[in-house]
């Protein structure tokens, strides 16, 4: 499958499911790298 990012980036994924980044924080945008997760500062 071919993923087109809103910034013009294009990647090809051969995985059975592709996780697409919608938060725009991913370092491998347009794919998700789990950067969307909640970060909690403690201590």
């Amino acid at each position: 499958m071919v993923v087109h990012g809103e910034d013009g980036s294009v990647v090809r994924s051969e995985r059975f499911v592709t996780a697409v980044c919608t938060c725009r924080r991913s370092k491998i945008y347009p794919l998700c790298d789990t950067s969307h997760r909640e970060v909690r500062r403690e201590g």
Partner: protein
Amino acid sequence: MHLPAPRGELSAAVTAALGGHRGALPPVRGVDPHGEDLTLALHVLYELHYRGFDGVDEGLEWDPDLLRLRAALERPFLAAVREEVGTAEVAAVVEDLLVERLPGSGVSHFLRERGEWWHFQEVFTHRSIYHLKEADPHAWVIPRLRGRAKAALVAVEFDEYGGGRAERMHSRLFADLLDAAGLSSEYLHYLDVVPAPALATVNLMSMFGLHRSLRGALVGHFAATEITTGPSARRMVSALRKLSAPRECVRFYTEHIEADAVHEQVLRHEVIGGLLEDEPHLAGDVAFGLMATELLEDRLSNHVLGAWQDGVSSLREAADVLV
């Protein structure tokens, strides 16, 4: 792979029995459930269900006396882990695992801040015990699932096994990492130097995988791994790039950033979701599997960081094996 050196009475009896010198198998009483002896004995017995050891009779996998001993070793280990984790709701545990805490205190945080090459080599060595059989323990659960959970878990496993291409199997990517790091990629090559806290993480998945009665825990284990790998793999990539590590070392982790972002979603929604729709009474076991995985990962992390803070190796007699 040859049999490892024993670490006490139990592991001595097990390795002797597998080597063909069977004496009376000792009773399991008053042993430390997280200790070196019990952990290695259990690890060796589980290995009979994977690839076994050179020169060891393959039929011993189903030897009633060894299975009885294995059960006697599993009981205190499982009881100790159960007692330490307590009980919780699946959703709450998953939610908690999904939060990234800062400042982080795990091994990958240490490596990113002040990891030296020997620290990385030690981590690769600990992890070689599992990653050279990556995904294998989870394959045992397949016949015990059905419907949505089964289809989804098999799809994730297919990805772990390289999507049908041997050179892309995650276990192969880890072997390439070891070779590039100047380490041995031979299966179980480092068994003798890997201490109990690392072996116990593999024993946990073997135990969950081999017992149908623990299928919920196995699914919880798989989910915990997939949920937590993404962020730690991201830190590993930046730590390794900082040291200009070989491409193959970085590759294993970049693959896991991308793959586990997918696997996490599929595990949570399809595998856990499907299983609990089918067998709602397993919710407690799924939560247990999630928490037990974290518990043993934390123990390993504490062991490794504790040794490094004291300026010593986190491996057993590291010097002669790593060269």
